[in-house]
């Protein structure tokens, strides 16, 4: 775990609340989210610790955590939170902020998602073979899932050609205008 200076950013809590539309003050640290989280074993911080980091205004630690990128969005935490906090949505918000602040710690996850969206932008739909190639190129992980390829190809589960949609210009327009609005 990287060490961080004990810097507290009081505005951070409010930013997360706005972005996620959840009231973080409702969290009383019962740990139910952690208890039910399937990916917790791979986290650097448990979910309730992430919630605590946000409550405590510890922006760097929260946004550069690995946990937020390993969250599988399975919604177990949201479903069982006794205070009705949409915890998965808070994790979403933290990812958005980490990306904007350039603090993505799980580069591979970030890269995979970038490749995924690039594929969507290019074809309108996900072109799985192209996605894998792009992801491999971006991360240098040339052998990712290469063991599955023969089986997938044999079963016809990996389309060899992209299914571009007809009005691909519309999709590109969406991405263009989205990027414009972000600036």
């Amino acid at each position, binding site marked *: 775990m990287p060490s961080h200076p004990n810097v507290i950013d009081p505005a951070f809590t409010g930013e997360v609340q706005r972005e996620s539309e959840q009231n973080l003050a409702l969290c009383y640290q019962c*740990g139910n989210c952690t208890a039910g989280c399937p990916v917790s*074993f791979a986290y650097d911080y448990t979910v309730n610790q992430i919630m605590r980091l946000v409550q405590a205004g510890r922006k760097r630690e929260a946004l550069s955590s690995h946990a937020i990128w390993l969250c599988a969005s399975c919604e177990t935490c949201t479903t069982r939170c006794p205070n009705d906090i949409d915890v998965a949505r808070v994790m979403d918000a933290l990812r958005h902020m980490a990306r904007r602040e350039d603090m993505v710690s799980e580069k591979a996850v970030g890269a995979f998602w970038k490749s995924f969206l690039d594929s969507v932008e290019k074809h309108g739909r996900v072109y799985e073979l192209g996605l894998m190639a792009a992801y491999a190129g971006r991360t240098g992980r040339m052998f990712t899932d290469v063991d599955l390829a023969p089986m997938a190809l044999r079963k016809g589960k990996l389309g060899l050609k992209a299914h571009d949609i007809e009005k691909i210009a519309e999709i590109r327009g969406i991405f263009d205008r989205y990027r414009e609005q972000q600036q």
Partner: protein
Amino acid sequence: MNIGVFVCHCGSNIAGTVDTEAVAKAALEYREVVFATDAMYACSEPGQAGIVEAIGTYALDGVVVASCTPRMHEATFRRTLERAGLNRYMFEMANIREHVSWVGKDKAANTRKAAELVHMAVEKLRRNERLQAGEFDIAKRVMVIGGGVAGIQAALDCADGGLEVVLVEREPSIGGKMSKLDKTFPTVDCSSCILGPKMVDVAQHPNITLYALSEVDSVDGFVGNFNVTVRRKAAYVDWDACTGCGECAAKCPSKKTPDRFNEFIGLTTAINIPFPQAIPKKASINANACIKLTKGKCGACAKVCPTGAIRFDQKDELVTEKVGAIIAATGYDLFDFTKYGEYGGGRYPDVITAMQYERLLSASGPTEGHIRRPSDGAEPRDIVFIQCVGSRDKSIGRPYCTGFCCMYTAKQTILTKDHMPDSQSYVFYMDIRSPGKNYDEFTRRAMEEYGAKYIRGRVSAIQPKNGRYLVKGADTLLGRQVEIEADLVVLAVGAEAARGAGELAEKLRISYDPYGFFLEGHPKLKPVETNTAGVYLAGSCQGPKDIPSSVAQGGAAAAKALSLLSKDKLASDPQVSGVKLARCIGCGKCESVCPFGAIEMIEFRGMPKASIIETVCQGCGVCTAACPQGAAQLRHFTDNQILAEVNALCL
């Protein structure tokens, strides 16, 4: 009328933003005001003395005090008037503190406003009447609803104080939740050993009438004169004849009847006496399980009963009791944990409630005090206790802390170790709440001496695994997930309002909170009173409580009832409605809107007329606003008094 006006400075509270001297000077110009002055603290000893003196000197008939809200000192100044020989209702207050000096910043505007409020008060006072409180007879009896430990205490204290007591209990025996407990915290003494003698006292007290297996059907009347109709449910046994010998239960062939007293973890017979120490010790038949009552055949109990007490044709019976006061002590119910799907929603046989565990621990329980898994009867080794099930959980509408679960869970871990030295208890908790004499020491003992492993975190899910249960929790102090394989899981279910609490509150005309707990008159200063005169609260019906608090509140409610009924007559508030018979045309509109049924139609010289039952009228004035002729008038708030206020303000 000679009116005196006293304008209070309240130190600088009023005088800081109101020119009190100018207000007093203005008041001298109002009709019939013969004296006006300002005073530093009107409510103080010298302030009141000044009022008394002015009443004598200026032969005042009425007084206006311009000071704080009447909700604060109206009663104070009314007593002052009485000391000076005036009628207490010849008094009006102008609220120039809360409604003027504390909320307005502009001194000129405030002063103008204060003067107008005084003018309004003077104009009303000019139309005030010298009202006299009436008196009415009262019944020196009290009804206690609910025979748990709080109700038992209240009943015994009232009875010892000389009142006749009617104790109504819904179940076949009194004793309530406490009678189901094995031991009590923090002394670990036997629950039935300390409660039993009190239950026997109830049975033997000459002043107590006990209606078990009975519920309140309806309540009417008012303080001092309630008429309560009690439904005595059919036991299918003549209790006058039943000796409680138990022959019937021994012969009953319906042996697989769910056992309510044992929280459904054991079985009983269709006819039974719920537990050995039951009071009254009488048999009753569960009509849903009885073969005779469901299928028409059998009747084994009737054949063996030595006194011939069985009555298959028995019906519910209604009895009406006249009482002067009512003490509600209806207790609580346990949270239904099947709402938690992640804990199995009731599908896992060895995930049980703490009360069920209590019955397993009890020597008089279905396992005779041996801890056994309900599924296979095996003795468990690893036991997980989960706290806050149905407490502090907004998502299922139970945001409050039940308050006693931390303690009973600690007790149960101790008893577990006592019963099974090789066992291991785990407790998942969020916070340990143990304020109280010897309470925190007790929870520490559970950990330090009895080796209970406390883990700070909630449990997310329970999953069956290899005949055991995988309990998936978190240790938030460690920042890790925790998975424990348990043989038995005990849920510390929270308390919720007793079923039917809302309906009873409606009958008693008392308020209840969103969760169904009855509302006390004031959270600090009237903890056992309600806003309905003559109705008091004891025990967990007001909010979850442990045993000592319930007993204390039972005693407190009894003291209130004794004090109320120590007088021979009660005074009635004269600020009630009255009907001028000459104006009334008998149209009955007032009768149809009265929320209290305080208006009856009478015949007067052959004409229909409305008549107010003054002791029932609460003084809301709904009738006055409904009467087109203005015949019904709420005293002290008559049409003319309010019109005078409106005219004073607007013309």
